[in-house]
């Protein structure tokens, strides 16, 4: 990380330390703390260019903020607004960017209705599991070829609570009233998967830290339980998962590497969160302890934007069924490598 990126991380971390109260936020009607969101927008966490009223943050900066939000499980429209902003930028529609992006940069919640398997979808059906879908004032949608701005008049939307209370999802009944903004870029899916992976890495890293801290203070048989090898090795395995997941998330830039990151980080977070519960013992079975929040986030994130099975099937189709072997996770790196032996 550059010094500026480290400073950004520290700023976001200290903001969340001071102001993020996850339990209070999920009890509010909209499910997130508007004050925290306003401060995140002020810091410039959204990837919106300066010419559209944003901070000029790049992918790396947004991912730093998402990783911090993942650590604390703070509910926030950052993920939804990031994806919507990038989809909008990808259209190249200057008028729409000029009109919408400054509002998003100021904190107006935006979201994207999209089919996670990248298939075609209709603009007048029911869309499920839309991030912040009942709150967003700007709703974009794709039919697989174009990006549209949804006319919200006549559209009905409802909050659909899921296991993960820290993530706001909604069902939207579209009417077909929409304005075409420009072409849909398939790369938006990769962007979404990479952003989610960054958040998952944050949650996994924090779940491990909390577990390590607990095992150093919880005493049984006259010793901290973290001194027992049976537990040490489980935490060592968690660390291997967190570090390799971080690498996968950092490298997720194209179709293959983003799918790899989605599968890998989903499985890593789920395993780490499940181990967090086991290593905490009885206290983790209580509502009061945060372990269940990490576990539920892990479950929800695993399903979000398509389950690992969906992406595995996609990778398998690329990797196993084509005539040519897959391009490895960075195309530029292994161009033209012969695989025949």
């Amino acid at each position, binding site marked *: 990380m550059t010094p500026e990126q480290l400073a950004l991380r520290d700023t976001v971390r200290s903001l969340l330390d001071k102001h993020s109260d996850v339990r209070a936020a999920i009890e509010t009607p909209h499910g997130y703390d508007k004050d925290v969101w306003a401060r995140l927008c002020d810091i410039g966490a959204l990837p919106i260019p300066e010419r559209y009223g944003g901070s000029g943050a790049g992918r790396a900066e947004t991912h730093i903020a998402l990783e911090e939000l993942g650590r604390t499980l703070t509910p926030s429209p950052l993920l939804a607004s990031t994806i919507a902003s990038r989809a909008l930028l990808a259209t190249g529609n200057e008028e729409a960017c000029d009109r919408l992006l400054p509002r998003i940069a100021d904190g107006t919640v935006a979201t994207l209705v999209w089919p996670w398997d990248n298939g075609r979808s209709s603009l007048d059906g029911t869309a499920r599991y839309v991030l912040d879908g009942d709150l967003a004032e700007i709703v974009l949608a794709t039919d697989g070829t174009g990006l549209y701005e949804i006319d919200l008049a006549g559209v009905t939307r409802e909050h659909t609570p899921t296991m993960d209370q820290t993530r706001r999802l909604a069902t939207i009944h579209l009417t077909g009233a929409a304005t075409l903004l420009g072409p849909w870029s398939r790369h938006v899916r990769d962007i979404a998967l990479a952003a989610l992976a960054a958040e998952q890495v944050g949650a996994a890293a924090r779940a491990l830290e909390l577990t390590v801290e607990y095992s*150093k203070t919880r005493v049984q048989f006259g010793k901290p339980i973290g001194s027992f090898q049976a537990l040490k*090795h489980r935490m060592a395995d968690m660390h291997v998962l967190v570090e390799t997941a971080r690498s996968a998330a950092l490298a997720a*830039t194209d179709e293959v590497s983003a799918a790899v990151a989605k599968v890998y980080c989903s499985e890593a977070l789920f395993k780490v969160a499940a181990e967090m519960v086991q290593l905490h013992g009885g206290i983790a079975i209580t509502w009061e302890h945060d372990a269940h929040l990490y576990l539920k986030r892990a479950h929800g994130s695993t399903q979000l934007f398509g389950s690992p099975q969906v992406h595995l099937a996609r990778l398998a189709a690329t990797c196993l069924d084509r005539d040519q*072997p897959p391009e*490895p996770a960075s195309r*530029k790196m292994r161009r033209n490598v012969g695989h025949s032996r």
Partner: protein
Amino acid sequence: MDLSLDAETLEFQAEVRSWLAAHVRPLSSMDTEHGFEEHRSWERLLASERLSVVSWPSTYGGREASLLQWLVFEEEYHASGAPGRVSQNGIFLLAPTLFAFGSDEQRSRILPAMASGDEVWAQAWSEPEAGSDLASLRSTAVRCDGGWLLRGQKTWSSRAAFADRAFGLFRTGPGERHRGLTYLLFDLRSEGVTVRPIDQLDGEPGFAEIFLDDVFVPDRDVVGEVGDGWRVAMSTAGNERGLTLRSPGRFTAAASRLVELYRKNPDPALRDRVVDAWIGAQAYRLHTFGALAQPRSGPAASVTKVFWSELDVALHETALDLLGEVAPGWRDGWLFSLSGPIYAGTNEIQRNVIAERILGLPR
């Protein structure tokens, strides 16, 4: 993280690829006398193009390649199906130690012969009573006129059946366990050395026991300070566990072979495991490339070791399940993969290192 290659590296990649395509041919097993010499000739051929130790200084036979270029070399090397490196214990374990702790005299005497394959090195660390607990080793080096006399027994010494020289740890006292150890080099053909090959589970003598009975070592073959051997050796341990010995190229190449195997033997029940193994190889590759951007601390090598060794087993087990009983082309790799979680410090030891030195858990 940008993994794109600069023009110089692309040119290097192209050169390596075309050279390998023109020269790679199958060799006999390096764990036979005949095969060992074939592999030594291959090392000589590599060295004649200065491709045996690309990252080394040119004075010792290298090309001063960057870490990125070294990774590219390794990817090309493994993707081409080139032979295993009979010199690898010297190149990847002893050489980094000499760069860090050796004298100029030692480097200029030892490294060129290592790079050319003229001297092949074996590692002599483990003893019958000192495996995971290496610091309990008992072989001694006793002071004599002009040098040291080695006494004791080493075991599980890879390549020692046919190699020329060995590097090891010996107790020179005073002090117990990690104290009073010295890092010494010795000739496997010296008077007083008895090498007894040990057949491995593939039936070939991939490692050996070494019996040392007053074997003379001159003072010039002490690496680092007398009594400082533990610290010197641990610098080698990081190399063995970490990136240098197990470059991602080996696993991405194996994963590509696995994918090809699946295409020929498509078994839907194994589909997810094939893709999982392929993802694991990609994740390992990305993880090692991440080290280019952000160098990692010593104990981080333990993370890498656990990952690559268990990945290697998974890759081979999946291939075996696709193939059934015969497993042509995968049997030896599978048998070898089983040693990965054991050598270079068992994965149980690595997990202790991660837990205590990275996570700070109490002993």
